[in-house]
């Protein structure tokens, strides 16, 4: 059996397969090398980073960058803010998305097509940045935590994903039976639908958590007070604008030590900002793939 197989695999096919493996190994290396470089640099000494001695693994292992970060009040406040915005943002997102998607999944819900049209239209066309900003301003929530939670609370594609999920997993008969037993719609949603929908809730939580944790645009336009800034804005100020002298985060007196730490801190900051969200990745990969799949099904 295996002999005939070997014969059938022609020389051309084997060369072709070798090319495919070479391509994939190249892709793998290209994606993984920058990640390793960042992590290794963050665990090296500042002299090793500045002199460019770090290539693959940490050189002169040290934690000085992390020590500085975790004793800096500005970064810690940013961390706390990001956690709060992500937590309450996800809470609002899941409650509102389910409250909208579940009725839309019911065929007995009169007006569902009209509402669907209103939702999809906002995907095709929007008022734009300035009118949205003026609306948020007129609500009086500018420069407050609410501006970080409310404007992006619902995403239409999430509603479509959730609606598709409810439609395909909750049998119609179940709803009818519950209705005959005198179960109210909200009671049915709470006691029957939600316990069956852990997968889709996980998808909603993950997409929104990743989005909120990584977002900086809303904070850029809606927030003015530094004590409200999420981590990403603080990262931007330190890493991209260089408006905050990273060296001033430390009490180092010598100029050379400051310069070195300034470079080292960039690497440590990147790791610290990314690890919380990356940590959940292995556990949730299954759900993410599921979410992308349901989402790609025509809504």
């Amino acid at each position, binding site marked *: 059996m295996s002999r005939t197989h070997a014969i059938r695999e022609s020389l051309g096919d084997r060369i*072709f*397969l070798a090319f*495919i493996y070479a*391509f*994939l190994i190249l*892709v*793998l290396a290209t*994606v*993984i090398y920058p*990640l390793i*470089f*960042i992590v290794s640099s963050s665990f090296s000494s500042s002299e090793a*980073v*500045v002199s460019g001695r770090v290539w693959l693994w940490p050189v002169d292992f040290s934690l000085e960058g992390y020590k500085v970060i975790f004793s800096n009040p500005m970064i810690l406040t940013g961390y706390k803010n990001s956690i709060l915005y992500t937590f309450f943002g996800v809470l609002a997102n899941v409650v*509102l998305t389910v*409250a*909208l998607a*579940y009725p839309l999944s*019911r065929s*007995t*819900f*009169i007006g569902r097509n009209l*509402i669907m049209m209103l939702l999809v239209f*906002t995907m*095709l*066309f*929007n*008022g*734009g*940045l*300035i*009118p*949205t*900003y003026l*609306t*948020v301003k007129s*609500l009086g929530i500018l420069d407050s935590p609410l501006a970080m939670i*409310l*404007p992006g*609370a619902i995403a239409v594609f999430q*509603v479509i994903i959730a609606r598709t999920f409810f439609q395909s997993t909750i049998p119609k008969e179940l709803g009818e039976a519950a209705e005959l037993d005198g179960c109210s*719609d*909200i009671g049915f949603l709470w006691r029957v639908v939600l316990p069956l929908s852990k997968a889709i809730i996980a998808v909603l939580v993950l997409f929104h958590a*990743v989005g909120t944790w*990584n977002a*900086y645009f809303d904070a850029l*336009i809606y927030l003015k007070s530094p004590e409200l800034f999420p981590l990403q804005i603080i*990262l931007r100020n330190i*890493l*991209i604008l260089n408006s905050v002298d990273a060296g001033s985060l430390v009490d180092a007196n010598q100029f050379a030590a400051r310069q070195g730490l300034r470079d080292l801190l*960039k*690497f440590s900051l*990147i790791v610290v*900002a*990314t690890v919380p969200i*990356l940590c959940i990745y292995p556990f949730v*990969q299954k759900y993410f793939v599921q979410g*992308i*799949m349901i989402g*790609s099904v025509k809504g």
Partner: protein
Amino acid sequence: MGTTGTVKALHDVQKESKALAARRLWKGIKRHWQLYLLVLAPLVYFIIFKYIPMYGAQIAFRDFSIVKGITGSDFVGLSHFEAFFKSPNFWLLIKNTMGISLYSLLIGFPAPILLALALNEVRSMRFKKTVQLVTFAPFFISTVVMVSMLIIFLSPRLGFVDQIVQALGFESINFMGVPGYFKSIFVFSNVWQSIGYGAVVYLAALAGINPELYEAAKVDGASRFQKIRNVDLPGIAPAAIILLILSVGQIMNVGFEKIYLMQNPLNVSTSEVISTYVYKTGLLGANFSFSAAVDLFNSVINLILLITVNSIAKRISDSSLW
């Protein structure tokens, strides 16, 4: 006489059935009043954060003043649009926006397809899983971190890219400061970040291909490459077309977040796009009406593109958005 009688009776029946339908409708709504209660809060959200701004987009046709409000401000017709079309920035913005988008589409659209096709040929499950796991990981990196990484890697002092360039005997280059490199840096770093995420959909489409087609290809003595061309590619075509329509509909919306962060005074001649221009003139320059007009122009072009591409796709294939 008899006919009028029947017509009248028919009218009555129609009226009655209309009333009956209305009553049934009301009954249906009343029976499921809780569902309407549930959608209330989300609908208020959409009205406040989506539809009121749409109504507010009319400031593009007015001279907005905070004192007079949106509807009270003076109506000026299309003068903001005219000012934009005549401004020296107009063609530069269009050129940069379209240029970055088309370049992104050209490289970014086929990249995940290639990865998925290649992964589909791999027989070792462990290798396949490893590649998938690793290429998916950059999806979790924030835009701020992504751009920071680019700045570090491409800096003449800290970055390994420049060290490679120097090792090859070339002069040190400040990549982020060269206008000509901006588009490539933007597009290829996007591919780096999203190739694994993008491949997921295609891998699932490949997994859904009928195994009998592969059997048939084998019987016909098809080579690996022929099998990819004649079985795999048609299998993923519907998904690819949908994604292509969606990306063409976004052609005028190049990601503001990343471009804005990558911008610096040296590369602004190639990096200024419509969305960054709207932000700068509107929110930073407090030129509300003018930038709202630019934004509106942008949205309308997008909408037209989406509708056009969708109808073309409908005509030449079975896949379309609606």
